[in-house]
Structures are given as structure tokens and as C-alpha cells.
């Protein structure tokens, strides 16, 4: 098992390398640069700016510099926010995105699994229909609609929650964003869970368990759930990577200083180093969470073994 993990981590290095290389050259293909803006700069002033950031070097040299810096854990300065290095921006923003994303994920997993199980056990009855209706609504109503509704209802009308802002991490400030992030995930988990639970309940070993006269609780929780939860685990990997690295919509609407918006803003601003930073972070999260999922598989399903 340990060997397997090590091997997976080693193969991650060339994967990251390819991602970094592709991203580095792709963003340069986009027209314009970090210093194009409404107010044109004279060629001399632009040259000064580019020289300051080494953007006047040949591209291969810039690439070599970037790789070298990256190996030393240095993401470089942000071009559009020169008061901060990319590392500093992540140090401030990433913990915030992770807090919100992790809370939303946990909420989604608990509620989604619960709702999905309830639906499966009441298949084609009212309980099932209401969960399906909820799940359909949750996955079809976009977050940019849910978020303002939460702001209007809980913030302006009932004055229970602040409209936006991080408030130095106050609990009340987190509720709106976490709910908005979690709702669509709850819907997905519930639907996945319902499907796999129904399938699991029909399988041979469950029939055997029932034949042996085990209680409903024991059949569902100890036997059916174990098999049914596998699709949820594989869903959780990429979902966690996406949730923990922040959401541009939720962070923008709730004015949350996470890193979700950097991905889009940096690309639009041609802030090359910040784009690269977000790419690396998201790639790392994806790789790590996929690995965790594979390990979880082995833990939950005795049929899966890695040697």
C-alpha cells in the first residue's frame, strides 16, 4: 500500500510538469499582456515595466526561470497586484477557500447521503419524490441565483446574516457562502446515493442478509451502505478539489477573499504568474484527492487491493 502511494506520488511529478508547461505557453498565446489597459502606455514605459518582471527575456528563458523558481517553492510576483507575491496571495486566500469548501463538502456528504438513502428506501413514494424534486432543483438552479436569494431573504429581510464580506472569519459570514456552495453538491450526492443504494439493495448479499433475518437497520447501514457509498467516494475526489480551491461566483457575490476568483481574474488580466499559481494549486489538489479516493476505495471495498 505504501509503495503504491509512493509510486502514485512519483507519477504526479511528470503530470505536474506537463500541466505547468502547457499552461505556461498557452496563456502566452492569448493576445495582449499584463500591461495592456484602457490607458495606453508609451512603448518606453511598457518596456520598463516588462524589464522589471523579466518579461523582455526570450520565452524559453522565462520558462526556465519560472521552473527554477517553482522548484524552490517560489511562485513569483503577481504582475497586477505587485504589492504581493503569488505565494502571499495564496497564503491569505487559500485557507479561506478551504474552510468554506470543506464545510460545504462535509455538509453535502452528510445531507446528501442521508437524503439519498431515505429516497432509496422509499422508492417511488412521497419521500422519494420530494428528494428527487429537491435534487433536481438543487442541481438546476445556478449558484448566481441562489446566492442573491440568500442575501435578500436572510440578509435584508430577516437581518439574520450579513450580506457579504469575510468579517475576519465570523461564523455568520460563512453561512451564506457555505449554503450556496453546498446546495448543488447535496443534490448531486443525493441522486448518486439514491441510485447506488437502490442497486445495492437489490444485490445478492443483501438478499442473503435479509434471508438471515437481520434487522432493517443492520441491512441498510452495515451492508448496503458500504457498497452504495463507492460512487460517492469517487465523486468526492474531484468535487473536493474543485470546492476547496474556491468558487469565483460564490466568492464574488459574497465578497469573500478566497482564491476562487484569482483563476478567472488572473487569466483576464494576463497576470501570468498568478494564472500559473492557480493552475499548480488546482492540479495539486486534484492529484492528491484522486489519490485519497483510491486509498479510500481499498479501505471501504475489501475487493480492491493495491500491491
Amino acid at each position: 500500500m505504501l509503495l503504491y502511494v509512493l509510486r502514485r506520488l512519483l507519477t504526479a511529478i511528470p503530470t505536474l510538469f506537463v500541466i505547468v508547461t502547457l499552461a505556461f505557453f498557452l496563456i502566452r498565446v492569448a493576445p495582449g499582456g499584463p500591461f495592456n489597459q484602457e490607458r495606453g502606455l508609451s512603448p518606453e514605459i511598457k518596456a520598463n515595466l516588462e524589464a522589471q518582471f523579466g518579461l523582455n527575456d526570450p520565452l524559453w528563458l522565462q520558462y526556465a526561470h519560472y521552473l527554477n523558481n517553482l522548484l524552490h517553492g517560489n511562485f513569483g510576483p503577481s504582475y497586477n497586484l505587485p504589492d504581493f507575491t503569488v505565494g502571499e496571495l495564496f497564503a491569505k486566500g487559500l485557507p479561506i477557500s478551504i474552510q468554506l469548501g470543506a464545510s460545504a463538502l462535509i455538509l453535502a456528504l452528510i445531507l446528501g447521503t442521508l437524503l439519498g438513502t431515505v429516497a432509496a428506501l422509499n422508492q417511488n413514494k412521497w419521500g422519494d419524490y420530494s428528494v428527487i424534486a429537491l435534487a433536481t432543483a438543487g442541481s438546476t438552479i445556478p449558484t448566481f441565483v441562489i446566492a442573491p436569494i440568500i442575501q435578500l431573504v436572510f440578509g435584508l429581510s430577516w437581518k439574520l446574516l450579513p450580506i457579504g464580506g469575510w468579517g475576519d472569519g465570523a461564523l455568520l459570514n460563512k453561512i451564506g457562502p457555505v449554503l450556496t456552495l453546498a446546495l448543488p453538491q447535496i443534490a448531486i450526492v443525493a441522486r448518486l446515493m439514491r441510485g447506488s443504494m437502490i442497486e445495492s439493495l437489490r444485490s445478492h448479499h443483501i438478499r442473503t442478509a435479509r434471508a438471515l433475518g437481520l434487522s432493517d437497520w443492520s441491512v441498510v447501514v452495515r451492508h448496503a451502505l458500504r457498497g452504495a457509498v463507492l460512487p460517492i467516494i469517487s465523486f468526492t475526489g474531484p468535487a473536493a478539489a474543485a470546492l476547496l480551491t474556491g468558487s469565483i461566483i460564490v466568492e464574488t457575490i459574497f465578497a469573500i477573499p478566497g482564491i476562487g476568483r484569482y483563476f478567472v481574474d488572473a487569466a483576464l488580466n494576463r497576470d501570468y504568474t498568478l494564472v500559473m499559481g492557480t493552475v499548480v494549486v488546482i492540479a495539486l489538489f486534484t492529484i492528491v484527492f484522486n489519490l485519497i479516493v483510491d486509498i479510500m476505495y481499498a479501505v471501504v471495498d475489501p475487493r480492491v487491493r493495491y500491491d
Partner: protein
Amino acid sequence: MFKGMLKATVFATTMALATGAFYTPAFAEVVYNRGNSADPESLDPHKTSTVYEAHILRDLFEGLVMQDKDANLIPGAAESWTVSDDGTVYTFKLRKGGVWSDGSPVTADDFVYAFRRLEDPATGAEYASMLYVVKNGEAVNTGKAKPEELGVKAVDPETFEVTLNSPTPYFLEMLTHQSSYPVNKAAIEKLGADWIKPGNLVSNGAYTLAEFVPNDHIKLVKNPKFHDAGNVKIDTVNYIPTEDRSTAIKRFEAGELDSNDDIPTEQMADLKTKFGDQLRIGPYLGTYYYSIKTDKAPWDNVELRNAISMAIDRDFIAEKVWQNSMLPGYSMVPPGIEGYSSAMAKFADMSQIDREDEAKKVLEKLGYTPEKPLKMEIRYNTSENHKNTAVAIQEQLKPLGVEVTLLNTDTKTHYSFLEQKGDYDVARAGWIADYKDPETFLGISRKASGNNYSNFNNPKFEELMDKAAAAGGNPEERMKDLSEAERVLIDDVGQIPLLYYSYKNLVSPKLHGFDENVMDIHPTRFISKD
């Protein structure tokens, strides 16, 4: 031990309750939560370029001259100044006892250092061109001269002298721009790039930097060493970036923000009913215009350019697309600069129907009809309102025999294409005044300007602009020359001005001293809150 702690706690709680009971608002910390449409790019005055930064830097630093709440020029770090008879040498007497927030005196050397730093190519200052009017300014910035050769001098610690290339009557106005603020040499030399961090930043304005959490807030606290600290009413100002305009409105309504500097214009009508006079809209020195390639057929024909410009229904665009958050514009220099009268397009007095008839006649004469239309492409950068403006113009020009196609790109692509003089017909652009002078709006159409996207090149215009520059010593004559230059620019349709910008502020009735002006400047030091 435990007992002692308990006692202390009880005592502290009682004290807190007691003081609470006698608390009067006069002792309470006054906090102003100020919505600012975007985070600054940098708090380094030499690296800034946006108006969002300007708001914050105006609170942190004090230049030689500053602006009051009506955007009028007032003494800043300089108490007084004299100008030589030929208008080229400015001698500033610094304020006695003016100090940095670390207690060290603000000296003429600080300004020498700051001005040189702005021009030093190694700084990479976007606004270095602001000081090109200073002797050797451009030469230093382009590496042709050493920073020490810049025309600035510390005569003595309290006397700072600037030598200009030629008389520049708007020089003092230019000095109100944040790029000419002083920076603390000792701090920069000691801390390098980290000098700008909260806790490190030494400033000389009414406030000092306490916190900077990107995308969340910038907290400034009152600087007790500021020379006018006695009159500064707000203790803490939090600049809160309000990128999402709709959220900003809700936060304002919920009292989380005391003011915001922008609104979602598409909700204008609702906002007016909801907020009444808390919503403040008025003229702002900015022009929204279309650049039309004047050196490319068929746009090299003045008559054609004029017909296109004339046929655009600006009233409709201002009212329907921009919900009156913009005003119809007929000149490059918006009204509102004292002593200057803008040169309006000649058709400004005609009714829209007459304009369209006239334009149709011209287009027919040139052989364009709805059956045999003229093809024109409008490029614009991503924005709902830029798109709607272009679509409106597309519809307006259609019956006249102009077939407009639209091309949308993101902002960076748009401006890099314009800058590289790409092949386009008409492109959207905008210009906001850096300082209160017509020069800032007219200079962008000069043939050598990097912002001359229409490739306008008219010798008469160049001549008049040069004449105005030479008339520096005589403000009245200079304004007349500039106005004549604008007349040439407008009659020759070097650009197509469409709209004048407006400021759009939401201001809580609790705030006082947030006064309206054409520069949309509101220094926190003049604001108070109930």
C-alpha cells in the same frame, strides 16, 4: 492566584460596564466603511494607475499640493510656492514641522528621491509620463539620462525646486495626481519591496495603513502626527472592494457600507426610488468615445465620418442604454473645467431627425443605401453596456445604409489590438481626466500619442496644440488655443465622442463632507460621520 484573576476580571467587567454607561458618541471610535469598486493594484504611489488607488492614496499620503472636498487645489506638504517669471521654475516651501508617520521630518530630499524614483526606469512606473514636463523627465525615464539629472533640487531641507522644460500652467494640477506623492526613502532602502506592507508603510497623510487583506478590506487608521489631525473626524476607514455591484447595493442597504462609488446602472430606476437623494449622480470628467480609423478608406473621408457621428442618437443611448448614468456627449473635453469652453460638434443643435436626414443625404451621395450598404465593424471590450451601446448604434445606422458588425474581445485583447494599430474600423474607448485640464483629453489625439487609436493626424490641430503649450504663461490665451484645437479635432471628426461620464455615488445620510465634484474626489479627512 486564581482569586486574584477573578477579582481582576470582576473589576474589569465592572469598569467596562461603567464606562459603557457613561459612553457618549464623542468618545466612540468613528468607523467609515467605504465601498470602492476595486482593490488597488498597488499602494506604492509610483506603481499606481487607477482611480480606486487614488482614493486610498489620497488618504495615506500628502503631495506638495492636494485637493479639498470640492477638488480645488490646496497646499499639501508644501505650505506655499512661487513660480519664476518665465513659468519654468517652481519653488515649494515645505510645511514647517511636517512629519512622516514614524516621526521623521518630511524634507525636500524626500521629494527629490520620490520624483527621481518615479522617473527611474528600474521602478517601472506606469505614470512616469506625468513628470515628463520636468526637465530631463523623459530622458531619465527612457534611460537617456541618469536619475540625478532630473530637474529637481533640494535647495535646503525645507525648499524644493522643480525646473520644467517649458511653462506648464497645469503643472500644479498635475501634482495632485497620486504619482507625485512622496515616499519614505529610509523605509524603502531598509525594507525593499516589503516597505508597502501594513506595519512597514511610512506615510505622511491623514491616515496610516493598518491592514490589507486583498479582496476583503484595507484598513486605514488616523495618523495622529498629521498636521491637520485635529480636524480629522473619521478614526478608521475601511476600504471595501465592491466588485459585485448588486452585492454592494445590498450591503449599503443593510448598513454594512456607508458609501459606494458605483451602482449597477441597469437598476437605475429602482435605485432612484429606493434611495432617493442618497443616490448622487452628476457630471464627472470623463468621455466615452469611438475611435474611427482616419487613415483607412473609406473612413479617411471626413464627410463620411461626420455622417456616421451625426446619425448616432446619443440621447437614446444615454437614456435607454445607460439609464441616464451618462450624458450625451458632443465634444472630447467634457464640460466642467473652469475657464474652458468645449468645442461641440456642429450638429449638436440640430434635432435628431434632421441629423439623420442630413446623414442619409451624405451617405446616398457617397453611394451607400440600405440595398448597397457600407460595411463597418465596431470593436468593443467586454461589458454589458458597451455591448448594448454598440447594438443600439448598429440599429440606428442600419436604415441609413450602414451595415454594422460587432466584435467583442476581453479588455486586454481589445487594448493590445488598438495599441498595435490593428486593422479595425471603429473601436470603443474611454478617457478619465488625470487632472483638471483640457490637455488631458486633447493630448490623446495628437499624432505621437500612444492613445491616438484613430491615427488622427491634422497639422492644424498639432499647430494649435503647440501654440497652446507655448502660451503657457497666459492662461486665457492658452484656453482659447486649446478650444480652437478641439474645434479642429471635432470638425475633422478625429474621434467620435458619444457620452460624458457621470459619478454615481451612494452616500449614507450619516456622512457629511462627501461633496460632489467633477473629479469625484472625496478625501476622508474632510468627511465626518454621525
